């Protein structure tokens, strides 16, 4: 490893990740809020008469009212022969310009009560309104009904809309038309409470004298009939420039304006009609807040679309992988069945190499299980890699025949393996971790595929010995799936990226071809296997050769183990990246194996935090039934997959119940490890070799099975 320059572990990437997830959640939530996703009935649900009674000063007052925060009411009506046409729910890219064109044709002005979120979508339309001499008022940000909206939310709606309009038009709106409002006599007590809040924020409430009801599309004649005041009175007329087909509104305006103009009417904005100055120029600060809001809203929409796409891609990839895995599993099961017909063959002497560093807890069981193996000529070489515990003494005290102990100064697992390989006499080498307990026929079964001279290495089947608790069950399931679906697929596709250090057999010629085990990566088994494949050897999987291993029992140990695996796998992938463009077996490894690892073990896990954020967003904004259905669907597929893997391995289905719970801690740990590894790989620092503390669980398991 050379000189170890250990820097302080970087932490800033966790802050960045948290900030990123918070911003993503905020953006998605803004988008969810704006798009009314999950809004429970977007119309008012209030029954008639609900909400109490408003003061008569309001209900019998004029259309434009100033409601003070203290409940004071003052109002003004349009002067005679003056019409203030008002258009709600815009801006709309289709209808607003058409209405502006009609107004312009007759030199008329109108007042447009625009929805803040739509102003952010179509700021240029809002600008056109102002440029045409008309006025823009506020119609809240998402068309909420003030009377049934909480006070703080109403304030937020008004602020957002004011900022949006300020950014789009450069002017601050003064007029507010409460959504779902009509004439003053429709104001309820609850509405009045909301209007006090609106007034306290400095707005004039603009109700209507005449409600054209054009949103119902009652026909041009009906709109005309409802929009004409009698007796020369002035009026605020309510129409709509968005929310559906407004051709009737446009047609009615084309008749209404010239007809009333002929009677001496003028068409003014609300402010013009009341003799008020127009909306004041917005401050630069407010405009910038509006720009920020527009950016955030549009960004949120983009992100939501991007997330949908990402989910779609992930689902398609997962489905494709599942299909390929299922297909390969069936093929592989048949192949193994053919291979394992008849008795096990003797293939020459086998050397089992056990690198051990501080494995006192397990080494005795490991060595005993190896010696008890029924393979005829077998030697066990334990390489003590400078252990500081009693590992070497335990092996010596066992006094077992055919067991050799080699000691070396601590130099790392790859060096220990190479020492063992140098010492070995057999032409078939079985590499075993110091914490692994072999089944009695494991060595014999493991070497059988080496009958085929093209095969250079064989992966055995590792099983978790300590399956107690959630963590044990989760890892057990993960191992069963990984070995019975992933590895079978890799075998069929001839791109096995890893022969696990726990149980693997190698042909001496293959080991010589690649020059032994390299210490350049933390996942020396992956690195070694990739090198063997690139040297032209086949690497296969033998599911009947079973070894029991002790899985990490705490989250901290699991983190360390996975961090090493993940970082090491990345190192090996990078080291063998040339395989992507090579021909033959190396190219197969590169294009199939490395691409698979890159996609499913690096890129998708890196996107997984976003998926979790999206899940949270879904809980908040999507219909519960839909979220539950999607979750149930995914879980069902997951359980079915794991169930199939358990069936292939002849395991019990009991632990399946723990699978849905993986979503809570295990999943996050798995993807955060990938994130951590990626950051460390990019920063290029040196890592310590993370070891886990052994408790001897595999030993206990061996004892338990021996007694059976």
């Amino acid at each position: 490893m050379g000189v170890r320059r250990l820097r302080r572990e970087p932490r800033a990437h966790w802050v960045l990740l948290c900030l990123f997830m918070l911003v993503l959640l905020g953006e998605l939530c803004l988008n969810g809020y704006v798009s009314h996703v999950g809004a429970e009935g977007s119309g008012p649900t209030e029954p008639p008469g609900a909400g109490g009674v408003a003061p008569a000063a309001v209900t019998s007052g004029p259309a434009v009212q100033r409601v003070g925060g203290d409940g004071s009411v003052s109002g003004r009506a349009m002067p005679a022969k003056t019409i203030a046409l008002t258009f709600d729910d815009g801006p709309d890219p289709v209808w607003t310009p058409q209405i502006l064109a009609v107004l312009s044709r007759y030199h008329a002005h109108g007042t447009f009560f625009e929805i803040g979120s739509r102003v952010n979508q179509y700021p240029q339309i809002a600008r056109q309104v102002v440029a045409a001499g008309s006025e823009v008022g506020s119609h809240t940000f998402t068309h909420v009904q003030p009377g049934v909206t909480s006070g703080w939310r109403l304030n937020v709606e008004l602020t957002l809309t004011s900022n949006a309009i300020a950014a789009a038009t450069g002017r601050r709106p003064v007029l507010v038309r409460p959504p779902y409002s009509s004439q003053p006599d429709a104001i309820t007590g609850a509405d009045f409470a909301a209007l006090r809040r609106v007034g306290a924020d400095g707005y004039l409430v603009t109700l209507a004298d005449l409600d054209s009801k054009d949103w119902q599309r009652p026909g041009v004649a009906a709109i005309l009939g409802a929009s004409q005041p009698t007796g020369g009175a002035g009026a605020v007329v309510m129409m709509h420039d968005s929310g559906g087909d407004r051709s009737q509104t446009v047609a009615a305006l084309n008749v209404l304006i010239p007809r009333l103009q002929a009677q001496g009417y003028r068409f003014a904005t609300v402010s013009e009609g009341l003799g008020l100055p127009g909306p004041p120029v917005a401050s630069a600060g407010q405009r910038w807040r509006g720009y920020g809001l527009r950016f955030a809203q549009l960004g949120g929409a983009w992100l939501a679309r991007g997330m949908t796409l990402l989910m779609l891609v992930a689902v398609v990839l997962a489905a494709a992988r599942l299909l390929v895995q299922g297909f390969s599993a069936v093929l592989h099961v048949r192949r193994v069945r053919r291979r394992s017909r008849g008795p096990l063959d003797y293939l020459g002497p086998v050397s089992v190499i056990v690198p051990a560093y501080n494995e006192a807890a397990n080494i005795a069981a490991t060595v005993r299980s190896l010696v008890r193996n029924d393979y005829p000529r077998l030697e066990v070489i334990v390489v003590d890699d400078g252990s500081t515990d009693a590992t070497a003494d335990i092996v010596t005290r066992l006094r077992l025949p055919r067991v050799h102990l080699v000691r070396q100064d601590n130099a790392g697992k790859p060096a220990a393996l190479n020492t063992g390989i140098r010492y070995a006499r057999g032409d078939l080498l079985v590499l075993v971790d110091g914490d692994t307990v072999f089944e009695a026929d494991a060595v014999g079964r493991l070497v059988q595929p080496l009958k085929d001279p093209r095969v250079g290495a064989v992966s055995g089947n590792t099983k978790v010995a300590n399956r107690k608790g959630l963590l044990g069950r989760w890892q057990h399931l993960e191992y069963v799936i990984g070995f019975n679906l992933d590895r079978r697929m890799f075998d069929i596709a001839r791109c096995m990226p890893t022969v696990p250090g726990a149980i693997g057999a190698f042909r001496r010629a293959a080991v010589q071809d690649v020059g032994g085990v390299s210490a350049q990566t933390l996942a020396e088994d992956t690195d070694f296997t990739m090198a063997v494949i690139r040297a032209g050897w086949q690497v296969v999987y033998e599911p009947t050769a079973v070894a029991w291993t002790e899985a990490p029992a705490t989250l901290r140990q699991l983190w360390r183990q996975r961090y090493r695996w993940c970082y090491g796998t990345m190192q090996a992938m990078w080291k063998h990246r040339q395989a992507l463009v090579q021909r033959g077996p190396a190219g197969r490894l590169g294009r199939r194996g490395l691409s698979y690892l890159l996609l499913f073990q690096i890129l998708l896990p890196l996107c997984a935090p976003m998926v979790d954020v999206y899940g949270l967003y879904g809980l908040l904004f999507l219909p519960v039934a839909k979220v539950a259905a999607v979750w149930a669907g995914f879980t069902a597929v997951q359980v079915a997959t794991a169930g199939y893997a358990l069936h292939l391995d002849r395991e019990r289905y009991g632990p399946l119940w723990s699978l849905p719970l993986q979503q809570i801690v295990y999943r996050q740990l798995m993807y955060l490890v990938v994130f951590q590894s990626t950051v460390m790989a990019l920063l290029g620092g040196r890592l310590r070799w993370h070891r886990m503390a052994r408790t001897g669980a595999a030993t206990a398991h061996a004892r338990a099975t021996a007694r059976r």
Partner: protein
Amino acid sequence: MHIPRRGGEPVFVDATGRRRRLFVVLGGSGGLVLLLVALALLAGFTGAGSGGLPGWPGSNAGRVQGTAAVTPSAARPTGSAGTGPHPLTGAASTVAPPAGVGASAAATPTGASTGTAPIPASSTHRVVPTQTPSGHPSRKP
């Protein structure tokens, strides 16, 4: 058998420190961008109404004075004037006379509970269900 000692630097180790510096700068810039986006996200929610209404005389005027300035008959062209198709006109005509203004204007927002708002037509009050804007392009599938 001869197994050569495999040397070589561990993969990914950045001997010069150049890559580390590059990614520290990149990470810092990314963080800055994230902060700016967070700022943009929050900025839109800030800034309250000014409270001032240009050109509105005595916007904080007394209640009675304010409402007294209103002449409902002139202000309400939809009143009893009777524009045929309006279903509202019937209800509007039953609204309390201006004589009740003084009392009811002083009422709290939940005037009904105080019992000082003698408006008999409360049951005719209704909410107008105007069209809600729909079909936002950003709506989730």
